[in-house]
């Protein structure tokens, strides 16, 4: 019980997010209308994904320094969860774009950057799949993971800000926080970010434990 308080917290926050996200009052904005509620889901998923991928890169660095197989295991599971969050982020963003921009996947630098980021991490998984020797796989994929994260950052956070983009917070557009969100929305949005991140860590923890057990069983 002592160690699971954060899981309870995650469940509580996400329940609160879902209920208040759907029932709570939101400001009426032109074009956005009710779809502004997606801010509670789409944006926290991307925040969560970035955190998970950063953690994955950190564990890859730790693996290269320590050589412990466990660090590699944690790194790959964080990357896996990050990919799931990224796909969900793409899906929610796509629904949102359909209603506000008129098409599910407009040709926009931010969206394409996100798609390339997904390719980057799929390539990471394929790279892992092509080794038989475990130590070799761990070391080489750790190298690629660090390299991939270093490319991921400019791809998502720097390049879209330089070009014209529909996406809020890019290409000279204001981010959502500045004009559209009132304090009532913030009361849901910030907890949602924490809640989704905790959920991601929780999923990762379960997968890491599963893979540890598998490793022991195989031995």
């Amino acid at each position, binding site marked *: 019980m002592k160690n699971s308080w954060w899981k309870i917290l995650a469940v509580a926050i996400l329940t609160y997010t879902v209920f208040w996200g759907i029932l709570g009052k939101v400001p009426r904005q032109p074009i956005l209308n009710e779809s502004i509620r997606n801010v509670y889901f789409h944006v926290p998923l991307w925040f969560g994904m970035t955190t998970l991928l950063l953690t994955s890169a950190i564990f890859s660095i730790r693996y*290269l320094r320590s050589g412990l197989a466990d660090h590699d295991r944690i790194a790959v599971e964080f990357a896996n969860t990050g990919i799931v969050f990224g796909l969900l982020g793409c899906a929610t963003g796509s629904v949102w774009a359909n209603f506000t921009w008129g098409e599910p996947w407009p040709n926009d630098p931010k969206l394409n950057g996100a798609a*390339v*980021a997904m*390719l*980057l991490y799929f*390539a990471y998984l*394929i*790279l892992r799949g*092509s*080794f*038989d020797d475990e*130590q*070799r796989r761990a*070391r*080489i994929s*750790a*190298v*690629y993971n*660090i*390299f*991939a994260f*270093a*490319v991921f950052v*400019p*791809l998502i956070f*720097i*390049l879209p800000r*330089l070009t014209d983009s529909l996406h809020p917070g890019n290409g000279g557009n204001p981010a959502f926080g500045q004009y559209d969100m009132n304090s009532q929305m913030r009361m849901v949005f910030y907890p949602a970010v924490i809640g989704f991140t905790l959920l991601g860590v929780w999923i990762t923890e379960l997968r890491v434990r599963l893979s540890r057990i598998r490793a022991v069983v195989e031995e």
Partner: protein
Amino acid sequence: MAESVRQLGALMRKEFLLEWRQRYALNGMLLYIVGAVFVCYLSFSARRGLLTPIVWNTLFWIILLFTAINAIAKSFVQERAGRLLYYYTLASPQQIILSKILYNIVLMLALAGLGFVVYAFVLGNPVQDVLLYLLSLALGAIGFAASLTLIAGIASKAENSATLMAVLSFPIVLPLLLMLLRVSKNAIDGLDRSVSWDEIGIVLAIDAIVLALSWMLFPFLWRS
């Protein structure tokens, strides 16, 4: 310091000698880019100046990208494992990756230069600011060489390295490629050079990041 520069020089000299003695690989790359340009020329059955500048530019960079991937993929598979092991006892891994990157930069500069001349010859040359275009080619050669050399090292350790090389490198070089496309498009349109400084700055920043990472990560790679 002087010692390590001397070693670096020796390694570079080895790379050039190796290439010179196995000329078929070098000639193969040269023929590859000329052939690719010619295939594009015939496929579009384009008379000079028929392609719009955007298509002209994009096509050239894509040819260059594939040439780069093919040329750099062989940096680590050319030599047998035993011989690589021997180098590692002689020099530090940083020197080896640096010599490979420098060598690949020279190779890419040569390929890009040749490609540009042939491409402009058969498909016409709409570039108004040739100096800036050549600068973007040089930056591209450096960036491709820097980012793809480490990827080639990674891919050469795996079993089906040819596919892996392509899969791993496409997303990695994409930010670089997009920036280069923009700089070279500015050069074609003959825009004022001050417009391109931002992009050039970013290309240089990406190059610096990639070089630094290759320098730091390669020692871990060769140990396996």
